[in-house]
C-alpha cells in the first residue's frame, strides 16, 4: 500500500473510532444526570439503578475515548508533521483549552464514580453534570480546530509563510459555529438512538421491564428531540458550505455544472467521466433554494473548480446521501414517538414502535460517520483548505502501511472487547443493577 494512502486511512480509522467513543462519552453523562436527578427528587430506586448502570457505561467509554484521543494528539505529528509544524501554533488555542476541559472532565468523573455515599448528594449530582458539560465543551473545541482546516483564519499566508498569526481569530473561524452545532446535536441524536435501541430490545424481550422502560424514555427523548433539531442545523451548515467551500457542496450533491434553478439530487450514481448522475431523483430548484434562499439562485458546480482541486465526488456524494437519508428516517421515528407521547399513549406499549427504535439503533452512528466522511473527504485535496495540500503534509517516514495494519488491528480488537463488555453489562442488569426486580416493592 502506498504510504500516503496508508497515512490517510490510519487517520480516518483512528478518528472514526475515536468519534464514536467521544460522542457517547460526552452525551451519556447527560442521560445519567437526568436519571440521577429523578432519583434525588422522587427517591424511586429504579432511577438510582439506571444511573449506576449508565455510569459504568460512561466509565468504559470515557476511558476508551481518552486513550484514543491521546493517540490522536500524537498521530497528528506522526502522520502529518508538515501540517502540524505550521498549523500547531495557529489552531492550537482550542486544543489548549480542550486540555483544560478534558482534565476537568476526568476530575469530575473521579468524583462521580467514586462519590456514591461519600459526597453530599447534590454535590455528587453536580459533578455528574460537570462531566457532561466539560465533555461537550471538549467536543466543541476539537470541532473548532477541525473547522479551522475547512475555513482557515487568523494568519496571513505570504510566499508560503504563515505570518501575523492570531490564535483567537483562528478559533472563531467562519465554520466553527455551524460545525460545532451540527456535531454536538449529532452526538445527542446518535447516542440517544443507540441507547434507546438497546433498552427497547430488552423491553421487547421482557427483561427488567421497569428498569429498561425508564432508561429507554430518557434516552429516547434526548435522541428524538435532537433528531428534529438536526435538519435546522444541517440547513445552516449547507448554506455555510455553499458559501465557503463550493467544491465540497458540489461534490456532496454531485453537482457538475454551475446553474440557476439547480435541482436537488437525491441518490443516484455519479458518473464523473461524463459529468452526470444516473438514476437520481431530481427536485428542480430545491438546491438553489436550500443554499441561497432563492429558487433561481446560482449554485456553483464542479466545472468552476480546477481539476486538481476537486474532491472525490462519489464518496462524498454517497456519504452525504447516507447521512441525510438516515437523518430523515430518525426524524420520522421521532415524530411517531412524539405523537405516541402526546396523543396515542397506547402506541408506547406496542411492539412496533419498540421495533422501530431497535432497527434505528445504529442509524445515528452510521449517519455520524457518514457526515464526518463528507466533511473530511469533501475538503480534499486540501488539509488546510486552499492553503496546504494533504499530500504535502505527510511524514517522510516510509512503511506507514505497517503502522496502518497495526492500528487497524488494535482498534478492531478494542471494538470487539468493548462490545463484549457492553453486552455483559446489559445482560447482567438484572443481577447487578435492578434492585426492583429482586426486592418486593415497598
Amino acid at each position, binding site marked *: 500500500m502506498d504510504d500516503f494512502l496508508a497515512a490517510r486511512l490510519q487517520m480516518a480509522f483512528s478518528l472514526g473510532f475515536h468519534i464514536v467513543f467521544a460522542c457517547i462519552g460526552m452525551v451519556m453523562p447527560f442521560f445519567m444526570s437526568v436519571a440521577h436527578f429523578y432519583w434525588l427528587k422522587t427517591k424511586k430506586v429504579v432511577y438510582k439503578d439506571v444511573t449506576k448502570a449508565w455510569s459504568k457505561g460512561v466509565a468504559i467509554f470515557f476511558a476508551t475515548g481518552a486513550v484514543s484521543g491521546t493517540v490522536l494528539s500524537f498521530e497528528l505529528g*506522526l502522520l502529518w508533521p508538515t501540517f502540524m509544524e505550521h498549523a500547531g501554533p495557529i489552531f492550537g488555542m482550542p486544543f489548549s*483549552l480542550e486540555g483544560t476541559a478534558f482534565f476537568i472532565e476526568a476530575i469530575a468523573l473521579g468524583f462521580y464514580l467514586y462519590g456514591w455515599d461519600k459526597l453530599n448528594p447534590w454535590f455528587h449530582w453536580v459533578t455528574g453534570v460537570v462531566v457532561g458539560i466539560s465533555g461537550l465543551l471538549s467536543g466543541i473545541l476539537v470541532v473548532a480546530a477541525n473547522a479551522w482546516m475547512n475555513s482557515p483564519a487568523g494568519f496571513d499566508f505570504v510566499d508560503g509563510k504563515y505570518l501575523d498569526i492570531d490564535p483567537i481569530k483562528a478559533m472563531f473561524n467562519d465554520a466553527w459555529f455551524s460545525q460545532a452545532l451540527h456535531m454536538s446535536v449529532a452526538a445527542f441524536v446518535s447516542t440517544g438512538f443507540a441507547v434507546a435501541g438497546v433498552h427497547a430490545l430488552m423491553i421487547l424481550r421482557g427483561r427488567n421491564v421497569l428498569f429498561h422502560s425508564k432508561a429507554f424514555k430518557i434516552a429516547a427523548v434526548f435522541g428524538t428531540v435532537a433528531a428534529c433539531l438536526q435538519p435546522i442545523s444541517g440547513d445552516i451548515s449547507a448554506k455555510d458550505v455553499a458559501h465557503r467551500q463550493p467544491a465540497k457542496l458540489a461534490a456532496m450533491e454531485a453537482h457538475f455544472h454551475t446553474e440557476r434553478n439547480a435541482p436537488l439530487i437525491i441518490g443516484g450514481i455519479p458518473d464523473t467521466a461524463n459529468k452526470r448522475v444516473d438514476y437520481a431523483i431530481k427536485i428542480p430548484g430545491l438546491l438553489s433554494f436550500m443554499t441561497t434562499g432563492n429558487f433561481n439562485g446560482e449554485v456553483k458546480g464542479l466545472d468552476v473548480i480546477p481539476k486538481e482541486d476537486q474532491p472525490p465526488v462519489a464518496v462524498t456524494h454517497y456519504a452525504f446521501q447516507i447521512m441525510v437519508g438516515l437523518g430523515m428516517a430518525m426524524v420520522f421515528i421521532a415524530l411517531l414517538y412524539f405523537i405516541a407521547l402526546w396523543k396515542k399513549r397506547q402506541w408506547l406499549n406496542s411492539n412496533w414502535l419498540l421495533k422501530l427504535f431497535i432497527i434505528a439503533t445504529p442509524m445515528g452512528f452510521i449517519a455520524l460517520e457518514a457526515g464526518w466522511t463528507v466533511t473530511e473527504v469533501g475538503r480534499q485535496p486540501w488539509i488546510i483548505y486552499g492553503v496546504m495540500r494533504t499530500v504535502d503534509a505527510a511524514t517522510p517516514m516510509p512503511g506507514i502501511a505497517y503502522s496502518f495494519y497495526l492500528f487497524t488491528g488494535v482498534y478492531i480488537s478494542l471494538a470487539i472487547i468493548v462490545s463484549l463488555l457492553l453486552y455483559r*453489562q446489559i445482560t447482567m442488569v438484572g443481577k447487578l443493577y435492578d434492585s426492583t426486580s429482586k426486592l418486593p416493592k415497598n
Partner: protein
Amino acid sequence: MIYVVIVFLWTSILLYILLGGADFGAGIIELFTSKGNRSKTRKTMYEAIGPIWEANHMWLIIAIVILFVGFPKIYTTVSIYLHIPLVCMLLGIIARGTAFVFRNYDAVKDDMQKVYTPIFIYSSLITPFFLGIIAASSVSGQIDVQAQDFLSAYVFSWLNWFSVSVGVFTVSICGFLATIFIIGQAADDDRSFFIGKARRTIYTVMFCGALVFVAAYHENIPLASWIFGDTLGLTAIIAASISLIIMFFLLQRKKPILLRLLAGFQVAMILFAATYSHFPDIVLLKNGANLSLLTHQGQAKAIDTLGYALLIGSIFILPALGYLIYIFQQKKEVQEAH
C-alpha cells in the same frame, strides 16, 4: 510569557512522571509480585489510584499540546525521527488504559480477566520503557536529520544502549514511586510486605541509575560531565541521593506523606539535573543544530495565548484536582478510624 510556558511544560512532564509513573508502577509491581500476593497488591493499588487514575494521564496530553502549539518544530522533529518508539508507547497507552477499565468494569468476572490482567501488566512495563527511550534519544544527540537510509534515520536514533538503559531506569523509577505511594495506603498487617518491596525497588533504582552511566560511557555520551560539570546539576543529584538515604531510614516509621514528598522531590531533582544542563536546548541532534525552547518557539502571539490558556486552565484544574485527592484521602482515614 515564554518562561511561563516552559515552566508549565516542565511541570506537566514532572507530574506525568510522578503521577502517571506511580500508576504504571502499580502494574509493574504486580508483575514482580508472586501469584499469592497479587490480589492483595492489586486491591490496595486500585483503592489508591482509582479515583485519580484518569487525571494522572492528562498531564501527558497537556505536555504534548504545549509542544505542538508552542514549539511545533520540536514536536514535529521528534514525531518524525522517533516515530517507531512513539508508536510503541502509544500502543502501550491504549492497551493499558483500556485493560485497566476492562478489568474493573467487566460485569462478569471470568476467564476474560486472564486476558486483561497480562495486557495491563505488560503494557504498564512497556509504556514507561519507551517513554524513557524517547526522552533519552531526544537529549543524547543520536537523532540524525541528515541520514539517508531508513535504519540510521528512524531506528538507530533510538535503538542504542544509552536509550535502552534510560528506558529501564524509567521503569525502575515507576516501580519505586508506586511502592512508596502504596505504603501509606496499605493496611497495617500488609505494611511490612510493602516496605520490603520498597527496599528492593530502591536498590533497583540505584542499580539502573548506575547502568545508565555505564551505557552512556559505552556510547561516548558525556553524561557525567553534563550532570557533574555544572554546580546546580551536581547539587540536584546530591540532593536526590540524600533524600534517597533519608527515605531508606524513614521506611519503617509511619510517615507516608513525608515519604511521598521525598520521593517526588527526588524524581524532580533527577529530571532537573537531566534537563538543566542543556537548557534551553531540548532536542539534541547529531549534526549539532540543537532544537532550543527559546530559538524554536512559535510566534509571540501563539506563545502569549498559550500561556494565558494554561494559566486560566490551572485556576480551574489545580483546586479541583487537589480537592479530589484530599477528599478521598480524608474519607479513607475516616473509614480506617471506624
